[in-house]
Structure formats: structure tokens, C-alpha cells
């Protein structure tokens, strides 16, 4: 009688393995393999050829020689613009994250307080702009912000200003672009968290004499920390390496690591050097990614405990 069970059990565990294997396969295909390729190039030397870098391995006289060129990493230290670039990227990403949080939290809170049927509509409105291509939406900001653009023309027309405000090609334009583009990534995780909150907790707080503000800061806010962390990471991590927004909206002095990487790759034609920048950037991003993972794991445990 036990025999027929076995294949079923096998199928079950096989299925389970398959399901949990997919994320690993995903990670391998889209993260590990590309990363290894970039890592490999970062240890090569540039040369005038196609592709424009040397092979790490050479086979001659029955000898396999692997030569690692560490120059690109040493060079990173010696070229001080990179440090400036990293610091400025982290600063821009950090400030944008805070701005997103300040704008996104109230929006998420308001949506979570809406009656259920209105929530979906509100969420839809948050997501709707991203149906248009990211690039086109950033280009649209050029039309809004430029000297001859909609905002300046409107302000000039109303007589509020005499000379156009220079907004495009300034750091302010970069902040506007990043906050605009990444705001949904802040709103959605916070909303998902807030909407699960138990209302009776707030009632209990009020019964015990807490003002609505006190109840918010003592109950709602602490409970939503995991949503805040998730949202912040989703904004911060991609903003650090952002290239399109500083390139299109920022001025030439908006230094970001994405732009430095571009110029090392395209202008200096130094693929190994650019790869080394990318590797270092990734290593620096691992720290916030780990924090993010830990909070997510906690959150999942909390759900499992419920």
C-alpha cells in the first residue's frame, strides 16, 4: 500500500524544489553570471582590439597562465574624482530617499485610510504614470523645467518672475526627477504595510488617553518601520547608480557614479576601469541590500507568526 504514495511524494518534493529553485536560477542568470563577466573584465588590461581588453588566461607551452591586472583597482584610489562621485551619488540618493519618504508616507497613509473600493482606484493612479516609458517621462520634465519651458512661461505670464528660473541642468532638477520617478516604489510598500494594521490598536490607544498624534507616533509609525525600510531601499539602491536622470536633467557638475562609469567606458574607452568602478559600486550597495533583506525576512516571520 505504501508504494503508490512514493511517486506522489517525490513529485511533491520535486515541485517544491523547482519552485524554490526558480529564484536561485533567476539570481544565477541575471546577477551572478553578469557579475562574473564584469569582474573578469575588471582584472584585464585595455588594448586596441575587439573586444578592447586582454584575456585573463593564456595557454602556451603547456602552461596555463592567468594574469590578473590589479591596476584598475589601484587606479580607483588614485583618481580622486571617483571618491567624490561615490559620495555625491550616496548623498543625492539619500536626500531623494528622504524626500520620497516625506511625500510618499502621507500619500500611502491617505490611501490606506480610504474605503476599500476607492483604494484600488487611488493605487491605480499612483501606478498609472509608469505605463509610459521611463525615458519619455524624464524627457517630459525637460519640457517643463527648461528656461523656455512650461513652468517658466507660466510664471512669466502670471508676472510672478521677470527672468526665467534656471531649473534644468541643476541639482534641483535631478532631485525632482529621482523623486518623481521613484515615488511609487516608496508608496507601495508603505501602503501594503499600513493597510494590514489592526484598527483596534488605535482604538485601544485612544481609550487609554492617547491623542491621535500620539497614537500615530507610538503605534502606527513603529509598526510601519518595515514598510518604510523596504520603500527606502527600493528608492535608495537604484538611485545611487542612476544614470539617465542626472544625464538628462542634471548639469555637467552633477557628479554621479553612473555618469563617471559612462565616461570611463565610452569616453576613455577603458572597459576594465569601468568594470572596476561597477564592481566597487556593487560591493558598496551590498550593505543596504543586506539591511533590506533582513527586514524583509523579519516581516515574513511576523506574517508567519500571525
Amino acid at each position: 500500500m505504501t508504494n503508490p504514495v512514493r511517486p506522489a511524494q517525490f513529485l511533491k518534493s520535486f515541485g517544491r524544489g523547482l519552485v524554490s529553485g526558480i529564484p536561485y536560477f533567476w539570481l544565477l542568470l541575471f546577477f551572478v553570471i553578469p557579475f562574473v563577466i564584469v569582474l573578469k573584465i575588471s582584472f584585464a588590461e585595455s588594448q586596441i582590439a575587439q573586444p578592447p581588453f586582454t584575456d585573463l588566461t593564456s595557454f602556451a607551452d603547456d602552461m596555463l597562465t592567468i594574469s590578473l591586472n590589479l591596476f584598475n583597482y589601484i587606479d580607483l584610489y588614485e583618481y580622486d574624482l571617483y571618491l567624490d562621485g561615490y559620495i555625491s551619488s550616496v548623498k543625492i540618493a539619500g536626500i531623494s530617499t528622504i524626500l520620497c519618504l516625506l511625500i510618499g508616507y502621507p500619500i500611502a497613509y491617505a490611501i490606506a485610510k480610504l474605503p476599500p473600493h476607492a483604494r484600488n482606484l487611488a493605487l491605480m493612479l499612483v501606478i498609472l504614470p509608469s505605463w509610459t516609458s521611463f525615458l519619455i517621462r524624464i524627457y517630459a520634465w525637460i519640457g517643463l523645467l527648461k528656461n523656455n519651458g512650461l513652468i517658466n512661461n507660466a510664471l512669466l505670464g502670471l508676472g510672478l518672475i521677470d527672468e526665467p528660473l534656471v531649473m534644468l541642468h541643476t541639482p534641483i532638477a535631478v532631485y525632482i526627477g529621482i523623486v518623481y520617478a521613484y515615488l511609487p516604489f516608496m508608496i507601495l510598500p508603505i501602503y501594503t504595510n499600513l493597510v494590514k494594521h489592526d484598527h483596534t490598536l488605535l482604538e485601544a490607544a485612544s481609550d487609554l488617553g492617547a491623542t491621535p498624534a500620539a497614537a500615530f507616533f507610538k503605534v502606527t509609525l513603529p509598526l510601519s518601520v518595515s514598510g518604510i525600510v523596504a520603500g527606502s531601499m527600493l528608492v535608495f539602491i537604484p538611485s545611487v547608480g542612476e544614470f539617465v536622470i542626472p544625464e538628462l536633467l542634471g548639469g555637467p557638475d552633477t557628479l554621479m557614479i553612473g555618469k563617471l562609469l559612462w565616461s570611463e567606458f565610452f569616453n576613455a574607452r577603458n572597459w576594465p576601469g569601468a568594470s572596476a568602478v561597477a564592481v566597487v559600486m556593487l560591493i558598496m550597495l551590498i550593505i543596504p541590500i543586506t539591511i533590506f533583506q533582513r527586514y524583509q525576512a523579519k516581516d515574513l516571520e511576523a506574517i508567519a507568526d500571525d
Partner: protein
Amino acid sequence: MKKLKQLMLAGSVAFSAAGVVAEENVLNVYNWSDYIAENTLANFEKETGIKVTYDVFDSNDVLEAKLLSGKTGYDLVVPSATFMARQIEAGVFQKLDMSKLSNHKELDAAMMKKLSALDPDNAYSIPYLWGTTGIGINVAKVKERLGDDFPVDTWDLIFKPEVVSKLADCGVSMLDAWDEIVPSVLNYLGEDPSSTDKNLLSGKVTDVLKSIRPHVRYFHSSQYINDLANGDVCLSVGWSGDILQAVDRAAEAENGVEVAYIIPKEGAGLWFDMLAIPKDASHPNNAHTFLNYLMRPDVIADITNYVWYPNAVPASTSKIDEEITSDPSIYPTPEVAANLFTFPVYGPKFDRQGARMWTAVKSNK
């Protein structure tokens, strides 16, 4: 079901029949933006039945990165001659089949000789258009700020901080191409424009660029055409034909903007854009057909009439508007030509130093 099978069979027959033909009637071209006449492609398609897919770029760097990664998918590309020299060395192009280029004899022999320094025996490329790297100005705004008597035919306009600072408020732009700006600065300083002295680069040249940097609004290699024409910038270091297109557009728009192109008296850089076929092109025959078409005097004359860049086919000159051929800023007179210098080909080391100096200057660090 039987019908479906028949249909599929018919489909597969048609498919394999198409496979017998050596090359599909397709050509993928990668050219600079605003760099061809409106009728060039349409007429070619009409004459040959070859369908052209036409993509554009605005920097040699982007083209080179694509070529060096290989498998660009393009059958014909247009690098500038100095970049092409390095790309030939990297082995990315195929030799041209002269038997398919009956119009090759139309090319300017003197120019071909000059170009053989970059492409030995002219084996890999033919010149498309050429031009100079000079200055475009908004005449009224510059006069208003510098005075009516200020001589505008000089690099002082951009490389002298006292002068350019007066123009900063109406907008100053520069090409995002250090390999053309550095020789222009060297020439302005009275040094050899093709110098690869790294002390000069990190010293005098960097000093000049840093001193004017605060007055430059942006570095870009195509945006200035519109901005000059609309009056959004009043001074651009740019390519001759691009600025002349801005002259034309401003005149057509009748928006009160008058743009002028200047080859400064100190001299200006001369460049050539070359047509070449990548080694891994999938339609090399069509590419040759297109090359041959582009060397036809009537075709290339139309292009020059439209983009205001001179070409390398002397027989086309009679078909070009006199407005263009008589303009010394497009077809330099012998006196102007004597002051022009060609851009150098840089080795990897100087290349990296130059690019980094440029990034540092641009970011104002």
C-alpha cells in the same frame, strides 16, 4: 487540420525560397544625427528596392563602444577619421570591394591622399562629409554684451574668461568631445594642436578649461543646434554644418534670432567623417551599393545642400547652391584653409588622461 498542414507547408517553402537569395533586401545604416538629405534614402529605396533602416548617434564614443563589442547589426557606419584609424587597428572593418564601387573615381584625389595617413591605401573607407570645429554665435546677443566693435573672429570668445563671462547669462555651450576641444585649446595657446604632452594637458590646457568652466552652461554635441536657433544659448563651440543648420533654422523660423558661424582667425580643427563597413555586417553587398550611390555627384550634392557640410566629390560642386559654395566658412578659401589643422589620433594612455581631465573639468572639480 489538413488545410492547416498545407498552409504550414506552403509557408515553409516560401521561407526556404527566401533563404536561397544571398542577401535580403535590407540595409542597416548608423549615421550622425541631422546628417543626410530628406530624399537620399527614399530615392535609394526606389532605385534599388533595398529597404534602409536608419539609426543615428551623436558621439564617436558611442559608435566606437558598439563597434568594439562586435555584432552591431549595422552594415554601414560613419566614424570620424581619427576614430576610424584606431578602429581599423582594432580590426572591426572589412576591406572595401573596389569592383563594386564604380564611382570611386569621383572622389577628390588630394583628399584621399591626405586620408591615406589614417587609412593606408584608402582600403577600408571613403570620405562622406567634412567640416571644421568652430564657434556659433547669436549675433545680436553677443554684440549687446561685448559691444559693436568687438572682433568676434577669435577663440577669445570662449577661451578667455573675461570675455566668456560676459556671455554666461545668455548661455554658452561646448561640444562634449574633448579630443576636439583639447587641440583647439592647444592651437589657441600657440602650441602644436596634435601635441600629446601630458604636462601640457594637465597644465596649461586644463587651466584654460577650468577658468572658463563656470561660464559654460552645458556640454553636448547635438542639442546646441536647436538652442542656438531658438536663442536658448548665444555661443556654442560646435561643428560647422550643425551651426549653419541653426543659422538656417533661425532664419526660417523668423524669430528674430540671427546665428553666425565663425572659423576663428587663430585657426580651427578640420575633420572628416568616413563611411566604413563593419567586418560582421550581414548585408555587405547592399552596403557597397549604398556607398556607390552616395558617391554619385547628384546624390551627394543634395546632401550638401541639405546639411551644409562639404563633400569629397568635386563633380558635385556645380550642383550645390552658390550660397553654400561661396561661403568661406563652409568651403574655406585658401587663406582660411592655411589656418586649419587636422585632429590627432590618440593612444590609449593619453586617451584615458584626456577623458579624465575632461570629466573633471565638466564636473567642475
